[in-house]
């Protein structure tokens, strides 16, 4: 298994956010996490990227326990890419500087080489003309594609996508999803939290439905949408359908 979670618990004060999450992600597998806001999807991703310490349980990356307290988190994080709902680009840097910062400062790649690689990544995502722009001069869709390129510049082994289309205007969602489709084709292992049910169904090998910090149901995308086994899954999908989002 590329990534394994075993009975992961996380609470913020008295409020339990993850209550015993267990999940296996194979190499090149794409897993979509669905569920209402507050069900723990984002926290789960933040815990995998060690942005939040977990209270109990184990997270394994290639069999290495990365949830070990006191582990050098920076070395682990550079192997796991993360893309955020609100892009989190650095507004004081050009697109090129955003993408080259981590390779240069963390991997010590020299400037010319880092820029070459950044340019080819940005070209791949249709951003060749925008390398010298600043984030605030770009549309939301362009910003999110830059954020994905920035993350890929570290050549991560796993990508975590945290509702990466939720802050976008509807007509800009497609261009970002195209990038994710391309990543899947290239064999990237991905764990994504999403509200785009159609997309989850299309791209995910497996879909996990989270409710109140637990994985209620985990199945092949088609099965979960067509034959949900659990009552709570059915209710959630019904609400999504009623809202016209499926």
């Amino acid at each position, binding site marked *: 298994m590329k990534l394994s979670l075993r009975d992961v618990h996380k609470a913020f004060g008295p409020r339990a956010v993850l209550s015993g999450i267990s999940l296996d992600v194979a190499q090149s597998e794409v897993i979509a996490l669905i569920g209402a806001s507050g069900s723990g999807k984002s926290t789960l991703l933040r815990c995998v990227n060690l942005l939040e310490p977990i209270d109990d349980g184990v997270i394994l990356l290639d069999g290495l326990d990365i949830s070990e307290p006191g582990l050098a988190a920076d070395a682990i994080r550079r192997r796991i890419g993360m893309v*955020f709902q609100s892009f989190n680009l650095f507004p004081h840097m050009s697109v090129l500087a955003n993408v080259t910062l981590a390779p240069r400062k963390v991997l010590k790649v020299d400037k010319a080489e880092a820029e070459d690689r950044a340019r080819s990544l940005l070209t791949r995502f249709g951003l060749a003309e925008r390398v010298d722009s600043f984030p605030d001069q770009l549309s939301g869709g362009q910003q999110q594609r830059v954020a994905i390129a920035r993350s890929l510049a570290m050549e991560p082994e796993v990508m975590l996508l945290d509702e990466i289309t939720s802050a976008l205007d509807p007509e800009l969602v497609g261009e970002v999803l195209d990038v994710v489709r391309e990543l899947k084709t290239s064999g990237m292992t991905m764990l994504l939290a999403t509200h785009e049910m159609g997309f989850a169904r299309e791209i995910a090998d497996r879909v996990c439905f989270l409710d109140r910090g637990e994985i209620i149901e985990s199945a092949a995308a088609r099965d979960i949408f067509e034959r949900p086994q659990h009552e709570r899954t059915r209710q959630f999908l019904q609400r999504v359908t009623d809202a016209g989002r499926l």
Partner: protein
Amino acid sequence: MNATVPGMSDLPGTDASGRTRRQEFERRQRRRALAVATTSTLVVAALVVILVPRTPGWYKVKRSFFDVEVFSTTFPRLLSAFVKDVQIFAWCAPCILALGMLIAVLRSVRAPALFPFRLFAAAYTDVFRGIPVILTILLVGFGVPGLGLDRPYNSPYLWGSVALVLNYSAYVAEVFRAGIESVHESQRAGARSLGLSSASTLRHVVLPQAVRRVIPPLMNDLVSLQKDVALISLIGPIEVLRQAGIDKSKYANFTPYVGAALIFLLLTIPETRFVDWLVARERRRTTGTAVR
């Protein structure tokens, strides 16, 4: 074009000059605003020029504060004394910015080994922000050379500057700290998720944004420093305020003080305008459009 479309010129959208109704309206508004502003300014200026000299006592005020003869003899002396103020400012300002930044960074570092530094930084800002500048100058400027130091280590320039640096660093540290805290947590998350260490995150992501944000309040402090340099006159150096005081006593006239004030204004007003320009330029550069 209008001729080919019957009745086009009769439409309310454009007039003979080809301007839209909106453009024509805004033109009228602009002209009217300009006329009103000009007239009212002229009226107020005329009233001041006509009425002020007629007030009882104006002659005394004029002789005491705006004596042309005293002004022309003392002003060049004041200007050359002001060079000292600028010099003191020029070596104090970089020290203040560096020390202020250091204190601010120490206060926001969370490593337990550095806890004593955090404590020191917090105490430092509390103490020096709580003491009047003038008291620090008297204490350090008279006190330290009074310990019996030899030349040149007993120079009032040195210890006066040290006092200013100590005091202003505390203010500047608080400005930097506010800037550091204003950078959203998501920026740190973005940087850390890429594998950047907390030091790299601070250096490349947090501080550059923090510094840009606090440039206006920072410049406020520097303009204020430019003025407070004059307080060093109290411990000896003959800079512009001291020189003005000497000339005031010599001519028994306050015009030299007015001259000194004028010199400060000549420097501080362009300084603040320059900062406004810098801030506007930065905004244009990173956002493309100026938001009014």
